[in-house]
């Protein structure tokens, strides 16, 4: 018989089989009856001798089929019927699971896209960031980016290395493109030869920028991003070879990068070549990011050793000018700390994501515990059905399997719904995520995520199905038949599973709530830090750059900026205006340099500390809302008169001269060969890099300084952020008037980074607020699920104990006693849960230490408050069923017996 034939003739086979067995029994009975037994006795004896008829038939049928699959199908059919019979239960359980799985899937898709997937470059594992630190360089040590790479370092590294296939340096810039419709500021990445080669992504059109393109006085060349090409040129394939005006210079387009190409983690419009004038390079100028593709098989340690080997070559090959000691840099202890490019891209976000993933995992567990509880109650209600099935010959394994199939089905259906939840969740996460969340554009639900969801559904399904299945499908299930129908008071033992679940839920909810509480405290602490500006909502920012090619003469640059400032200040509703090379927290690459204090002796060759510096216009402290601690602000005659004056931050003043008052009239310089500059004002400390970081010592230069850093006559700051304080900040009308103000001065000036200070501030807090929101959501979910758990268990016990309570009341117990008894039960579970939860939280919150600010991971206040809150709410959840217990009418309760 063929396999297929068998499949079709199966029904007949089964019929034959049962008929045959029936005949067998008949024959036996007849024989026994013939031997003198009564017919009834004979039937019983025949059945005893034969064994379990159903099981035998089933075993016999199993010979013909693929038993496990078919049994499974039968269980699935049965499960569907069982779930359909109880739609309320199914809906509640499915929703609980769907929310849990949805939240976890959403976060996993983010974790997967951001942390797990390799970067979108060929053989991305070979790509490294040339990170290096300089612990010996004061002021540089706490520098997030380490010591960047100077152009001379780049030449040394790229020419002498033995471990890299290609190596280059890059930085970002803002360029002005004119002559194409409106003048536009575009985002540019400036790359040296070796960078595009290292990334290894072929251009869509044309060619890469090459060594020949970076000659300082050669023809200007540029590449376009796919997006810019589409936006400005409509995807015209003839664009290669055309000229556009970039920073007022005619520049040839040599290529277009393909769609989806991102530069490390930067969106860009143009790729421009660096233009290093090799003959004029010095050792310093640490302003570039290094990137390289290591040779196959080279480890990070080998690459680090290679760089370390080249540092002396670098110091021997270049100098900082006559009279300086190139080996002074040995004191900086420059140390290569090469890291995978992916790590560089991901940065500090991985911690946040893992914490969020972990908390949502806990929520999932709580959800599972809830569903387990529901299932326990349900299985209890179905004891009779299970007992009947056992009596009819169902094996123990078969029943466990059936219950498991049901719960796994629940899990899977929850998972399907969960994917829908996750889809919404991912959009929410992307919208809400830290603005600097790396690889944001890559986040999506992919196959890996779906695999995760399926796995999670199966796992959770079998997890919450296992306990009820094991507990109630045991061999003793047949006992249930006898007692079914009569409501006995349920033994303590049968409540234990549910109570343990509730305790676990309370414990996990406590952990989550404590984490959320710590984040709230962090957030509050961050908000109390003086950011160095006031009323950020009413501070409008706008960045304007004046290219060298448009206005060359320095005094004219200054006058143009001054003119813009006057026009801005004249706009109705603008109270004050000023400009600065950057506002706090704007996130532009900071400028650092050495500062010498008059009267302090520096050993020969010793480098004085590096300090953060910026340029600010007169009126800046007033407009921004930064307090002047002592002395005075710059005045325009200081600026135009090129007076050697400077302001410093309070911490710098204290460090150098003891107090802010003492600093006034003292002098400092950026180079001992240059004139001293007099300190005329001290400004409050400003946390430039965000309120969670220590405020750096800052030197404030006027916008125009004579011979600053020995760069010859007054150098203006060409790209500045204008700030205007106005009630109308952020409104479209104000922005229009500000744009007109700028363009009325010079129609070719592009604008960028138009935003309010509040947006900048929020963005710098994004990591903390994102974590806060996520933990808040997780905590709230945990709290609600935990409450449902407690409420469910207590009200179930109350309904089970109705008779007992009735008896107690009949025997004279007061309502209050009953209330107390029930509350006590709830309080006991809650307290045990809280104690366990505190223990777990003490261990777990340590993992989020780096996310906290102004509060320790073991903050007793938070722990106490959360514990109190949880106990209070839990008692509230117990109170409703407890009241119901108190109101039990003894007569009614006893009548049903």
């Amino acid at each position, binding site marked *: *018989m063929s396999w297929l034939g068998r499949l079709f003739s199966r029904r007949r086979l089964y019929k*034959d*089989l049962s008929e*045959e*067995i029936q*005949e*067998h029994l*008949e*024959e*036996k009975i007849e024989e026994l009856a013939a031997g003198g037994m009564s017919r009834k006795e004979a039937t019983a004896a025949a059945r005893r*001798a*034969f*064994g*379990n*008829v159903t*099981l*035998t*038939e089933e*075993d*016999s*049928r*199993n*010979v*013909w089929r693929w038993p496990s699959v078919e049994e499974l199908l039968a269980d699935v059919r049965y499960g569907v019927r069982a779930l359909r019979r109880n739609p309320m239960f199914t809906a509640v359980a499915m929703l609980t699971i769907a929310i849990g799985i949805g939240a976890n899937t959403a976060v996993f898709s983010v974790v997967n896209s951001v942390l797990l997937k390799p970067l979108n470059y060929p053989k991305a594992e070979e790509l490294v960031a040339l990170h290096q630190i300089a612990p010996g360089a004061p002021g540089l040590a706490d520098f997030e980016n380490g010591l960047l790479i100077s152009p001379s370092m780049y030449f040394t590294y790229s020419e002498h290395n033995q471990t890299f296939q290609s190596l280059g340096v890059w930085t970002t810039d803002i360029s002005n493109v004119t002559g194409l419709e409106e003048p536009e500021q575009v985002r540019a990445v400036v790359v040296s030869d070796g960078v595009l080669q290292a990334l290894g992504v072929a251009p869509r059109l044309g060619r890469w920028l090459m060594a020949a393109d970076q000659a300082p006085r050669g023809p200007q060349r540029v590449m376009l991003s796919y997006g810019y090409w589409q936006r400005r040129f409509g995807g015209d394939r003839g664009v290669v070879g055309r000229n556009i005006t970039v920073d007022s210079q005619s520049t040839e387009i040599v290529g277009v990068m393909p769609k989806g190409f991102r530069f490390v983690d930067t969106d860009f419009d143009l790729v421009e070549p660096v233009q290093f004038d090799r003959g004029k390079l010095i050792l310093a100028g640490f302003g570039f990011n290094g990137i390289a593709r290591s040779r196959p098989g080279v480890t990070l340690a080998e690459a680090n050793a290679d760089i370390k080997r080249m540092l002396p070559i670098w110091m021997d090959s270049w100098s900082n000018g006559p009279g300086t000691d190139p080996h002074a840099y040995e004191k900086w202890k420059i140390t290569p700390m090469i890291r995978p490019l992916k790590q560089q891209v991901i940065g500090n976000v991985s911690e946040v994501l893992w914490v969020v993933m972990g908390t949502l995992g806990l929520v999932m567990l709580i959800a599972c515990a809830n569903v387990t509880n529901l299932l326990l109650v349900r299985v209890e209600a179905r004891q009779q059905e299970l007992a009947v099935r056992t009596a009819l010959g169902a094996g123990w394994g078969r029943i466990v399997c059936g219950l498991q199939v049901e719960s796994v089905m629940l899990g899977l259906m929850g998972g399907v719904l969960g994917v829908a939840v996750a889809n919404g969740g991912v959009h929410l996460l992307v919208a809400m995520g830290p603005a600097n969340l790396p690889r944001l554009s890559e986040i999506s639900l992919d196959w890996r995520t779906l695999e995760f969801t399926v796995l999670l559904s199966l796992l959770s399904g079998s997890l919450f199905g296992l306990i009820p299945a094991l507990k109630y499908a045991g061999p003793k299930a047949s006992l249930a038949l006898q007692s079914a129908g009569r409501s006995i008071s349920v033994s303590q033992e049968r409540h234990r599973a549910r109570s343990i679940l509730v305790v676990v839920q309370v414990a996990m909810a406590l952990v989550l709530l404590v984490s959320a509480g710590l984040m709230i405290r962090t957030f509050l602490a961050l908000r109390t830090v003086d950011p160095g500006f006031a009323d950020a909502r009413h501070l409008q920012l706008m960045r304007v750059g004046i290219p060298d090619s448009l206005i060359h003469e320095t005094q004219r640059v200054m006058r143009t900026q001054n003119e813009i400032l006057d026009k801005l200040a004249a706009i109705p509703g603008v109270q004050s205006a000023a400009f600065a090379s950057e506002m706090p927290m704007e996130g532009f690459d900071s400028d650092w340099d050495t500062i010498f204090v008059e009267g302090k002796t520096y050993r020969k060759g010793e480098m004085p500390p590096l300090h953060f510096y910026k340029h600010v216009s007169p009126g800046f402290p007033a407009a921004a809302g930064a307090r002047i601690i002592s002395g005075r602000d710059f005045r325009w005659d200081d600026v135009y008169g090129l007076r050697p004056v400077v302001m410093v931050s309070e911490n710098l003043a204290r460090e150098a001269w003891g107090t802010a008052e003492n600093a006034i009239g003292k002098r400092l310089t950026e180079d001992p060969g240059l004139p001293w500059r007099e300190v005329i004002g001290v400004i409050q400390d400003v946390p430039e890099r965000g309120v969670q970081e220590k405020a750096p010592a800052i030197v404030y230069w006027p916008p125009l300084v004579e011979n600053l850093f020995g760069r010859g006559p007054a150098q203006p700051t060409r790209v500045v952020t204008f700030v205007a304080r106005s009630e109308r900040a952020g409104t479209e009308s104000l922005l229009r008037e500000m744009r007109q103000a700028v363009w009325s001065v010079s129609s070719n000036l592009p604008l960028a980074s138009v935003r309010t200070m509040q947006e900048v501030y929020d963005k710098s807090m994004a990591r903390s607020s994102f974590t806060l929101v996520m933990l808040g959501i997780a905590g709230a979910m945990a709290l609600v699920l935990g409450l449902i758990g407690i409420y469910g268990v207590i009200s179930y016990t109350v309904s089970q104990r109705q008779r007992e309570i009735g008896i107690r009341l009949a025997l004279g117990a007061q309502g209050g006693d009953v209330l107390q008894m029930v509350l006590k039960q709830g309080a006991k579970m809650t307290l045990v849960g809280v104690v366990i939860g505190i223990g777990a939280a003490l261990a777990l919150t340590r993992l989020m230490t780096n996310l906290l600010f102004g509060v320790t991971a073991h903050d007793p206040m938070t722990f106490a408050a959360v514990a109190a809150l949880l106990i209070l709410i839990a008692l509230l959840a117990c109170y409703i069923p407890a009241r119901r217990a108190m109101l039990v009418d003894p007569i009614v309760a006893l009548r049903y017996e």
Partner: protein
Amino acid sequence: MKKTVQRDLFPGALEMMILRTLRQKPSHGYALVQLIKRTSHDLLQIEEGSLYPALQRLLKEELVKAEWGVSSTNRRVRIYRLTAAGAKHLEREVSSFERMLEGITRVLAPGES
């Protein structure tokens, strides 16, 4: 209980006995039970039910075939009959069983042979 025979015998023993009995005389399930009981002088008590899964296995492997017929007691029964393949299978099984038995005997009574 239901698996007594299979537990006490080795796997395939029941099938072997069924085949052996059928070689002697095609018969139906109930008769098979009686025959085996009788031939073994009641040494082997098989639970009657366990016969049927075994018969189904043999049917599936086409070592026996079955057809409806009428028994000597005039009842409608399914009569099983050995196929050629079944006969060959039985021979192989028996000879391998005998070898095994011999081996076991030697171990249990060393030095006697």
